């Protein structure tokens, strides 16, 4: 079964500061700050890429096995969903 591409929450606003993404979803009363790898994943969520495709980029850029990258990206994406940062 094909996975759907990941999309950011339409109300999420973000800025990158020194390699760390600051993300706020209005009305949620909280903000989130991502570390550099999380920021890279966040930047790759463009409504076109799936988890597997994002993991492939991370695997290449950080020289980690695809399976490891995929597991980490899925876990991270679950966190983003928990904080309502994804559509």
């Amino acid at each position: 079964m094909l996975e759907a591409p990941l999309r950011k929450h339409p109300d999420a606003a973000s800025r990158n500061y020194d390699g760390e993404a600051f993300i706020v979803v209005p009305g949620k009363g909280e903000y989130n700050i991502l570390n550099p790898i999380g920021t890279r994943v966040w930047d790759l969520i463009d409504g076109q890429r799936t988890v597997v495709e994002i993991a492939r980029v991370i695997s290449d850029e950080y020289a980690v096995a695809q399976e490891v990258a995929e597991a980490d990206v899925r876990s991270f994406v679950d966190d983003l969903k928990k904080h309502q940062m994804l559509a």
Partner: protein
Amino acid sequence: MRDAATIDDYHPETVYFERRLNAFGPQALELEVAGIRARLEGLSSEQKSQLAARYGVFARRDASPAPDLVVSVRHADRTEFLKLRVGGVSETYRLLTRFEGEDLLAWSYEWAALVRFDGHAATLAAASSDRAIFDRCIENFLRVAFAHLALARGGVLMHAAGVVRNGRAYVFFGPSGSGKTTTTLMSAGDLVLSDDLLMIVRDGAGFAATSVPFRGLVTPGATTNSRYPLAGLFRLVQDDRDFLEDLGRPQAVGQIVQSLPFVTDRAESAPRILDVVSEMAFATPVKKLHFRKDPGFWRIVENVGGSAAEAP
């Protein structure tokens, strides 16, 4: 399921403001806060005098040809909008807002307003001419309006205390109970801009802080409407010793955003808020101030910021 009290809330739509509501009188009063002008029209002579006395240095004698906001103050045709919940624990003051396009609807217990920012016009329907209630309506509406007007101008209304020392403004912020009022009480001899709410505005390449006229009914009014260059923004943390802790840029932005009332619920405003706060955090030192409840913190605070703003 809503409780019985909320079932009786009246939530105005924009069509409510198309009704023919009566003005209280023919008088007008202009207020200016950090260069932002709002004219209140439809006041009685008594209301104008009372509001002018209340807002002191912020009340203008001259009329601007193009105020940033012209507010038509009208007598609402109902005695309340939101219903005050009775019985049990007293409720937190409720003020609701909703945007319809670029127009802002705001309402509370005894007032409701429609602000058309594009047209620089607003209608404020106040449910009572009783002085205390009327003043409260005006006050609470203006807080919301000026928060949005400040943001449009690249500044912010901020829950913060501000103290001026040697011509520079030191802004102390944090959640309720963090010590904002304490910092002002520990600043004998300095000019206190506010212990709760102030405005930060662009000032050349940097930012400046200024008092605002908004206060509780018993708090003394500000004595100056001047702006003072921002020396630093300090997130308060009560501790058993005084020291400064560096804040990373994302943390600094987040802490400041959490201190902005009225503007952070609207998704469309979020990018603008981040732009403005980012520039503030780049132009001004933002630190965590761990402090004891005595004036000793000034020894470590007053040298922050040097004599020039940091370059972005």
